[in-house]
């Protein structure tokens, strides 16, 4: 399949700040990445690291509360330079988003079938009967049993997990070219999670849809994503192919994250934990934000901030002491 190069998302130097009293909270700092058509990029990091703010800022959704800087290029234009009506035409049609809290995004007063067909009416040229058929098809694809008979049901008549799946059905029904999914399966059982992730993967493959998948489950990353970006305190600290990053992480934070997972360790043995707690964003250390918790830091780390540097093969890491590790990783592999 030939890729349409304009369908590549380019986020450059994205920074987002929120006013907090008299201070300014830097939620996202200098984040850059790209997503090619059909590619699935994972975004991981601990709670509060800026994953959701990054995702929402791509569609300008944080403009109301905060200040966005940088550029988000899509189809040759900078989305952040668009005015609200122009942005709204992009949202939900070419770029769809699945939110972390599904209930806030469903209208409790409308039957779910209508919510899907209305979205299709607004964003596609499908006929009335095609819209209904698509709605049933999508509900069926996200694993709602007897989908055709549930079009007239209201959101409260579904369980929490089913509502999440209805959300996913609405987002995917318009066949978006780019999907921004914020923890789409975190609230779901592993069985349903597997179905939904397979559906997202199939759409990425068949319709060349790019995907950004925010998750805190490294297993989901391993099984679903092509590339992964790891965030810490508002910055991307490591990026690369899933295979490289999960097998031979470069950044000490990624290494700590991987080691905390109970995998290939003796049953009931003590697990590795990253010492300390994440820094408050209002009181970031002047040097590397991970320095207070880093087991391999040296004197320079507290003074200056490491840039996100390239390590070849689309591999990037922001750490002064990474240089020495690629060789180690290579011999271990």
């Amino acid at each position: 399949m030939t890729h349409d190069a304009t369908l590549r998302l380019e986020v450059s130097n994205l920074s987002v700040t929120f006013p907090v009293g008299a201070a300014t909270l830097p939620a996202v700092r200098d984040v850059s990445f790209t997503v090619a058509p059909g590619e699935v990029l994972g975004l991981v990091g601990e709670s509060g690291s800026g994953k959701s703010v990054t995702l929402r800022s791509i569609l300008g959704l944080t403009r109301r509360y905060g200040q966005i800087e940088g550029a988000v290029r899509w189809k040759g234009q900078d989305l952040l330079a668009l005015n609200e009506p122009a942005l709204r035409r992009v949202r939900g049609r070419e770029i769809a988003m699945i939110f972390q809290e599904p209930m806030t995004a469903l209208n409790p007063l409308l039957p779910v079938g209508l919510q899907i067909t209305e979205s299709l009416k607004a964003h596609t040229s499908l006929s009335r009967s095609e819209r209904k058929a698509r709605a049933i098809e999508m509900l069926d694809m996200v694993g709602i049993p007897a989908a055709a008979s549930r079009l007239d049901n209201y959101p409260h008549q579904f369980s929490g997990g089913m509502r999440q799946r209805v959300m996913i059905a609405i987002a995917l029904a318009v066949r978006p070219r780019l999907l921004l999914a914020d923890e789409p399966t975190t609230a779901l059982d592993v069985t349903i999670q597997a179905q939904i992730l397979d559906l997202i993967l199939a759409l990425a493959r068949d319709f060349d849809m790019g995907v950004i998948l925010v998750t805190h489950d490294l297993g989901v990353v391993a099984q679903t994503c092509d590339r992964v970006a790891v965030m810490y305190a508002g910055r991307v600290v490591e990026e690369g192919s899933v295979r490289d990053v999960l097998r031979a992480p470069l950044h000490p934070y990624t290494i700590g994250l991987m080691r905390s997972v109970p995998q290939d360790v003796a049953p009931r043995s003590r697990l590795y934990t990253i010492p300390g707690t994440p820094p408050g964003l209002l009181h970031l250390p002047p040097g590397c934000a991970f320095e207070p918790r880093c087991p391999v830091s040296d004197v320079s780390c507290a003074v200056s901030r490491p840039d996100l540097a390239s390590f070849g093969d689309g591999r990037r890491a922001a750490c002064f002491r990474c240089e020495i590790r690629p060789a180690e990783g290579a011999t271990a592999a």
Partner: protein
Amino acid sequence: MSDPVLEIRDLRLSFPVARSLVDLIRRAPVRQVNALNGVTLALRRGETLGVVGESGCGKSTLARCIVRLNAPTGGSIHFHGQDIFAPDQRHDRRFNRRVQMMFQDPYSSLNPRMTTGEILAEALRVHRICPAGDIPARVAELLDLVRLPKDAAQKLPHAFSGGQRQRIAIARALAVEPEILIADELVSALDVSVQAQIVNLLLDLQARLDLTILFVAHDLRLVRHISHRVAVIYLGRIVEIGDSETLFKDPVHPYSRALLSAAPSLDPAERGNRTHLEGELPSPLDVPGGCAFHVRCPHRSPRCSAEVPALRPLATGGAAACHHIEEIANERL
């Protein structure tokens, strides 16, 4: 680790479903949610028993029955040989002290206006654990036990991170020197590295205090790591139970096998190796007859829809409830 501290026999619980006006007008029969359909289980002193299953299968209901927050509609629970629901036991405060439940959201169960020190002191006072003069020393000991800094005693719950609040809840549960801890999705909302801290804490406390733990969680990797034994629940019944490592390496019940294989592996090379579970978890309003799993089971026979399979011992020391274990095992060879 052999004498049972808690024996659950044929535990059943059905909740009546609130009837809508339409139901009343139509004189529809009273319906009920069958949350537990005959659970038999013994908790051995000093062990961790993991409980897994899809959402709505009855894990929390089982946990709530054990701490008497729900009254079963059938069956029994004996604690050291005493029926905990016998009329003369119902008001026995000692039982409440000896079996402690920790909730998923500690924030909502911690009084926001009381400092950590006051919360712990109250628990010590109510259950008359120690003389009033010893309370401050005991509070300091408890904070140390769960690795919170000493000055934590003066702070209100909102001043702590999610993981720290989880530890306050654990400290409060431990304050009254329980024998059994019930942990229902204790770490599910936490970051991987914080989860690891809490898991280490539980392993530690168990070794030091000879605690018995019932660990309910949907993260299968964590359950496998922390548990001695694991019970797999489907629609209010145990379908397989056994030694954790054995069960995770070689589950025999078709449902356990599907559930465990749906958990995403951390190894990107294992992509696409999942066996898929077809269909949806049936509603507990009408649990299928016979083996409740038969509507989704690839191995079902006519016998499966007619006859409830009993939990039968396996050669590996565990037990499973399936009519066709032997054939399925041979098929795999």
